[in-house]
C-alpha cells in the first residue's frame, strides 16, 4: 500500500459524486481544448507570418489591383531581399462548391519569399520548367486525389480565357508540405505568366506584391519608400508587415480570442467553485478519520499531501480525459473544416497550457481542505465524533 493507493481509495469512495465532479472538469477542459484550438487556427496566420515579410496592396483596398510595372520599380529599393507577386484566381475544381484557394504567382521568386513551402528538388525543377505547371498543398491534393503528373482543369469564378470559357488546364508538378504543421497546405500556386497571357482582361496587373526585407529593422523604412514612390499615382499603395496585414484581416472576423477567453474563463470559474466545494465537503466528512490517522502517528505534512494529492489527481483525471476528447474532436473536424481553417490542430502548447491549468485547479481546490486537515486538532475532532 502506497500513499497513492490511499489517495485513490479516498477519491473513489463516493462513485456518484466522483462521476459528477469528473464530468464537470471533463467538460471544462473539453471546451478549453476545442476553443483554444479554434482560436489558434484563426490566429495562426498572424503567428506564423514571418517578421521580415511585407505585403504591398492597393491603398483603396486589397481587392484592387496594382500595375505589374511596380515590380521592377520596387525591386530597385534598398533593403528588399526578394520580391514576388500574386493574383487571386477565384478557383474551383469541377463544381463551384469545390472552392480552391488558387493563386497565380511569379514562379521564379515565389519559393524564395515563402520558405515554408517545402517541395522536393525534382518537383521544384519540373514546376519551374513547365509554364502550365501547378503546385498543390498536400491537404488539397489529398482532398481531390491529385497526384504528381495529373492534368487537371481549374475554373475561375472571376476570370475567363481569351479563347472563351473559364477553365484553365494545369499539370500537377509538385505537392508541397509545410515546414510547420500549422502552415496552410490547402492552397495551389501556378505561373503568373501563363495566367496573364491567357486571361481576357486585367493583363499586366497583379493582385498584390510580397517581399522580404534584408532585415526586419528596415521594414518601416522600406514600406515608407514604396508608398512614397507610388503616392499621387492612379494606383497608390499601402505596405504593411504580413503580421499587421493578417491581423487586420482577422479583425474582420471578430474578436475570437475575447470570446474564447470569456467562455473558457466562465467554465473554469464554475468548476473551481464546484470542485472546491466538493473537496471541502469531502474532507469535512472525513474529519474523524483524519483525526484517527493523526493519532496513529501520521504527521500533519503527510496528511496535507494526501488531501492535496487527491484534488490534484481528480483534476488531472478529469482534465486529461477532457483534453483527450478535445483532441479527438479537433482531429475529426480537421478534414471537414480544411477549407476554412486549414491549420486547425490541437497543438502541444494548448495541451501543456491545459496541464498547467489542471495542476493549478488541483492546487486551488485542494489547498483549503488540505490546510484545514493539516491544522485539524485531534482532541477537538475526536470529541465531536
Amino acid at each position, binding site marked *: *500500500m502506497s500513499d497513492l493507493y490511499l489517495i485513490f*481509495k479516498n477519491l473513489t*469512495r463516493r462513485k456518484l459524486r466522483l462521476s459528477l465532479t469528473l464530468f464537470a472538469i471533463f467538460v471544462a477542459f473539453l471546451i478549453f481544448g476545442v476553443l483554444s484550438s479554434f482560436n489558434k487556427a484563426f490566429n495562426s496566420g498572424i503567428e506564423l507570418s514571418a517578421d521580415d515579410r511585407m505585403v504591398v496592396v492597393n491603398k483603396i483596398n486589397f481587392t484592387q489591383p496594382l500595375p505589374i510595372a511596380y515590380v521592377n520599380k520596387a525591386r530597385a529599393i534598398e533593403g528588399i531581399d526578394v520580391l514576388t507577386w500574386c493574383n487571386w484566381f477565384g478557383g474551383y475544381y469541377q463544381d463551384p462548391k469545390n472552392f480552391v484557394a488558387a493563386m497565380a504567382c511569379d514562379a521564379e521568386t515565389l519559393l524564395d519569399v515563402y520558405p515554408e513551402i517545402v517541395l522536393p528538388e525534382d518537383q521544384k525543377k519540373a514546376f519551374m520548367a513547365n509554364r502550365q505547371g501547378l503546385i498543390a498543398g498536400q491537404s488539397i491534393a489529398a482532398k481531390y486525389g491529385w497526384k504528381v503528373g495529373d492534368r487537371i482543369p481549374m475554373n475561375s469564378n472571376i476570370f475567363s480565357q481569351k479563347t472563351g470559357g473559364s477553365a484553365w488546364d494545369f499539370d500537377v508538378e509538385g505537392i508541397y508540405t509545410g515546414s510547420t504543421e500549422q502552415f496552410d497546405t490547402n492552397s495551389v500556386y501556378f505561373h503568373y505568366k501563363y495566367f496573364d497571357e491567357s486571361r481576357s482582361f486585367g493583363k499586366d496587373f497583379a493582385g498584390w506584391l510580397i517581399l522580404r526585407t534584408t532585415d526586419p529593422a528596415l521594414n518601416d523604412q522600406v514600406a515608407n519608400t514604396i508608398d512614397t514612390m507610388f503616392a499621387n499615382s492612379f494606383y497608390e499603395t499601402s505596405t504593411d508587415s504580413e503580421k499587421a496585414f493578417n491581423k487586420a484581416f482577422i479583425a474582420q472576423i471578430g474578436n475570437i480570442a475575447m470570446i474564447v477567453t470569456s467562455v473558457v474563463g466562465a467554465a473554469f470559474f464554475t468548476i473551481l467553485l464546484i470542485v472546491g466545494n466538493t473537496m471541502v465537503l469531502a474532507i469535512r466528512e472525513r474529519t474523524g478519520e483524519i483525526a*484517527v490517522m493523526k493519532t*496513529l*502517528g501520521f*504527521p500533519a505534512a503527510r496528511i496535507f499531501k494526501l488531501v492535496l494529492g487527491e484534488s490534484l489527481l481528480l483534476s488531472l483525471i478529469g482534465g486529461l480525459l477532457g483534453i483527450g476528447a478535445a483532441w479527438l474532436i479537433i482531429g475529426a473536424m480537421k478534414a471537414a473544416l480544411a477549407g476554412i481553417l486549414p491549420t486547425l490542430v490541437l497543438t502541444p502548447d494548448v495541451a501543456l497550457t491545459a496541464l498547467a491549468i489542471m495542476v493549478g485547479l488541483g492546487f486551488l481546490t485542494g489547498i483549503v481542505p488540505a490546510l484545514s486537515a493539516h491544522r485539524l486538532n485531534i482532541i477537538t475532532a475526536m470529541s465531536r465524533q
Partner: protein
Amino acid sequence: MTENLFELKKVSKSFVKAKETISIFEGLDMTIKAGDFIAIMGPSGSGKTTLLNLLGGVDQPTSGEIHFDGKRIDNLSENGLAAWRAANVGFIFQFYNLMPMLSAAKNVELPLLLTGLGRSRRKASVEAALKLVGLDDRAGHLPKEMSGGQQQRVAIARAIVSDPKLMLCDEPTGDLDRATADEILKMLQLLNREFGKTIVMVTHDPEAAKYAKKTLHLDKGEFVKEELMA
C-alpha cells in the same frame, strides 16, 4: 520486571472554555509499571479520556512532566509526538475507527506506512497480526462487511502490528454485547500476559475491569481508590 514505563510528575491539565479555565488535573502523580494492565473507572467527566490522551501523547499537560521509558515526552514538538506515538503506542477506540474504504488487511497495514519496512516485511507483519486476532480469513473484507466484534479485532491487529510497548484503549467494549466484549477482553489479556504489552484501558463496565491486573478509580481528576485483581 518492575521498571516504570510511565512516570507522571505533578501533572496539571486545564482547558480554557468560553474564557473560563476548567482544571481537570492538578499536580497528579502516577507511575505505570512495564507489563501492567490497568483499568481506569470513574464517572463521566472525571478526566479518564483526558488522562489517556496525555499518556498517548495526543495531548500535552499544562504543567508537570511525563516520562516514558526514562525519556520526557511532554516537551516534544507536534511532529516529535507523532513519531513517538507511531513507534510506541497502539490505540483502540470505542467505535473501532477503521478506514471505511480500506480492507481489513490495508487497515492493519496503515501504521506500517510510518515505518521504513518494505512490502514483503509489511505483508508478513499484517498476516501475523490478523492471524493473532483470528481474522486471517477476512483480510480482504471491508469494515462494513464485518460485525462490531470483528471490526474491533481488526483494530487490535492494527494497534499491535508495529509491536508497540503500550496499548491505550478508550471504552474498547462500550459498543459490544457481553459475549463479544468478553472475547475482546480475553484478547487484550492475552496480549498483556503472553506478549508483555502494557495496557491502560478506560471502561464503565466493572465486568471489563476484572480482566485487568488492577483498577484505578478516578473522580474529579484524582485517584480515589485502587483495587488489585486476584
